[in-house]
């Protein structure tokens, strides 16, 4: 979603400050980089999102480079009635959650029993293997009736935790599918 941006920094003021810095060109270069970012923000596609930490529901704007399709800036949404553009330390650092963070997971990782390392796999292999393990565990110990002979149709040996950090539609898909499989050990961070 594209939103109207508020007026930004007065570029002339920044240029004036940088030219007055004298012979040390490092700060000048830094200012030039910032200027470049300003221009990129002006031409970027902007998308609104919601913060991923506490539950205030603060609004953020992601600026996406038109050429690369990558997010290059995230900041508070000044139109948002709750945060009015402001953010806390975590929200202000939101950019560090993007793929620019070198620690982001990018490939499916698998660790075989008794192995001491992760190995990279593809999605199809992983999904089929997890489905096999899940079905075998579920079917082996599936409880059709309990000690009192009551129909319970449940599995107690497969469990699900999480998450309060994913979208509603994802939560709902999980809530429905784990019940379809007969899970009863179902929980998430609401309790912790």
């Amino acid at each position, binding site marked *: *979603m594209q939103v109207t941006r508020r007026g930004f920094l007065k570029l002339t003021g920044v240029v004036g400050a940088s030219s007055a810095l004298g012979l040390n060109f490092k700060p000048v270069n830094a200012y030039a980089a910032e200027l470049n970012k300003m221009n990129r923000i002006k031409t970027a596609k902007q998308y609104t*999102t*919601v913060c*991923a*930490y*506490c539950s*205030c*529901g603060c*609004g953020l704007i992601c600026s996406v480079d038109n050429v690369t*399709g990558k*997010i290059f800036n995230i900041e508070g949404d000044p*139109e948002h009635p709750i*945060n009015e553009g402001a953010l*806390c*330390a975590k929200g202000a*650092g939101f950019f560090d*959650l993007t*793929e620019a*963070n070198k620690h982001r*997971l*990018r*490939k499916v*990782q698998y*660790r075989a*029993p*008794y192995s001491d390392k992760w190995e990279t796999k593809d999605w199809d292999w992983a*999904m089929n*293997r*997890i*489905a096999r393990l899940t079905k075998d565990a*579920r079917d082996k110990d599936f409880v059709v009736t*309990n000690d009192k002979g009551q*129909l319970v*149709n449940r599995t*107690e040996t*497969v469990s*699900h935790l*999480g998450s309060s*950090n*994913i*979208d*509603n*539609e*994802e*939560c*709902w*898909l999980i809530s*429905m*599918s784990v*019940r*379809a499989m*007969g899970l*009863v*050990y179902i*929980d*998430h*961070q*609401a*309790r*912790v």
Partner: protein
Amino acid sequence: MTNHYIDLKNSDVILIMGSNAAEHHPMAFKWILRAKDAGATIIHVDPRYTRTSARCDYHVPLRSGTDIAFLGGMINYIVNKDKYFHDYVINYTNASFLVNPEFTFNDGLFSGYDPEKRKYDKGTWTFQMDLNGIPLKDPTLQDPHCVFQLMKAHFSRYTLDKVSSITGVSKDNLLKVYEAYSATGVPDKAGTECYALGWTHHTTGSQIIRTMSMIQLLLGNMGIAGGGVNALRGEPNVQGSTDHCILYGNLPGYLKMPSASLDTIEKYLEKYTPKCNDPQSANYYQNYPNFFVSWLKSMYGDAATPENGFGYSWLPKMDDGKHYSLMHLFDKMYEGKVKGLFSYGTDPAVSSPNSGKVRKALEKLDFLVSANIFDNETASFWFGPGVDPKQVKTECFLLPAAATMEKEGSQSNSGRWVQWKYKAANPPEDALSCADIQVRLMDAIRALYAKEGGPNAEAILNLKWDYKNHNGEVDVLKVAKQINGHFTADVEIDDKGVKKQFKKGDLVPTFGMLKSDGTTSSGNWIMSGSFDEKGLNKMALRGKEDPTGLGLYPNWSFCWPVNRRVIYNRASCDINGKPYNPKRKLLAWTGEKWVGDVPDGPWPPQADKEKGKYPFIMKADGVGSLFGPGMVEGPFPEHYEPLEGPLAKNPLSNQLINPTIEIFNSDLDKVANASEKFPYVCTTYSCTEHWCSGALTRWQAWLLEMQPELYVEVGEELAKELNIVNGERVTVSSARGDAKCIAMVTKRFKPFKVEGKTVHQVGMPFNYGWLYPEDGSDSTNFLTPTVGDANTFCPEYKAFMVNVARRRG
């Protein structure tokens, strides 16, 4: 939250207790400070002096785990000093109801307790009924069996001296808070309470919140602008994940998870559909069958028919009286009885209580599937400290997930605002959204059952699971519409006297139109109305209109239920529908309709004896419960000590701990109450720069630099006794484990005087784990016990006993 974040600005007195809002909800705190700028009094009651305390009018330290004593003393004060809002209490609460004469309370226990089962038989926790089955009342509140008199007698034991001795709060400080807060018990003042994990993380957590709810009812602060009881929740979509009930005991929309004795849908609906004979009670949950059958239709689609009970028999059933929470799961896993765990966006190896037990339990799994944006201590448990990978059989999967701005969908904040967000960029390389992961996984599982069959395979194969677009990706809007609900047949609906036609497939515009005959489907009834019938996505609305001037922003996002921004809002008006507070008109009755916020139902106010309804429409009897038999510990809150505390005896009774908490008995569940080995009260908390277990924030250089490692805050007096200096390496230990960390010697903790003795309290953040930073600290939860609130099973992270010792070398 009964109210919402911006509404905090409308308050005259804000009690922050069980929260450090300035550091953990900085944007919420902005609205608290707006109230302060407008003249409100802001009070912080907390064991530790924090940045919240620094900006409040005053800070009152209390010993961790004594909140009920503190608040019980406030009820005693309000009743004895006649500070309660008479009109509200008589008309809108059950204060006048007459209780069963056999109901008793004696030495810390209510009638019906079974010490073997640690459970109550609630047979006497009932009201006396008239011939029509309506509770008998004494509007003068004088009958010795009326709720008001029983409540008064119960809390008369919470004297200033007694409360001060239990909590460690001086009598002056108690009076200061009681006076300031109870001043809101008048029509034109609003008091609100902000809590967070500081209240839920106790074995008495739900009853702490209930005590405050009672205070709010007594002062007429429920359902009004600037009032309510407001949970500042700690995770971005914990409201939504709770609403959609990734929880063992509930189905989406807080419908009840069926248990084994309810073997037919008829028995199930009979049990969970409340009845009320009072014609003035809306008893809105009488619509329960409409919500439940519509939910089954959303789950099984056309396969759910009236003939097969809409697929009810396919659902898993819990054993009656048994719980399946996170702590129960790890207990059972530690016994070796759980084979597989899916862990999405969560890090229980750090965040669950008694980490030592949790990590041993993980080693007993056959397989573990983690989905996250970063690696964490749970996914990588098999090479954690003291674990030899060659001895660990578990097959582990670590699935790369999309971050929030890399996917479209909605998130619900604590104020129940469901906000739509957009996909800004693709996730890196092979990463997928959790929706795509779950749909692909379920596709693979369904393919196996289609081919091979298996027990109760119908439940899996009949699941409605057609949420992918032509690219094979999850169509999030389609899921959102399935949650909202649609008509499954052509129908005509009488909408407030107007006949409306709907076609099969049309979106249901409100949950009032859901039916129990199979002609509607809704994946979560409280979200019904998030779209209009034409398909307008109200969650994406960004209108800034504020017609009431109260900051309701009715055209910004969708707020459940039915865009009502303050719930129980009919209680903001008197029985004729006239606003109690003319300065902050949330709602008013014109004689024909309500204007302002979306009212809690269209009916006239309750003075209209024919058509009028009581304000608390989700309660079967229509009024707020000062007597609350729904709780497992008793209809009135009572102070019990934490599972581990400094006292050998409860100063109020011979019942030391909550008599209904479940005791876990594995060899790793050690407890040391009133022990010389572990003499200091400990509590845990977060900081502004980290989030929860730190599983996201420790990987971010900027944040990690601000808060790099684990520390323990030790008051100056205790530090002197222990000869510990600021910055020194120490070990904090409990009966279960220890945590190595840095000592922060501080003025922020002061010793308490409890039962004539000096009690020291220390505190630690819970944001660290061994995986990253590499030379950093491990989980604080090696110290915490496996025990939880008796209603909710929220662990007791906020009060347990430790020792602190200097570490050499």
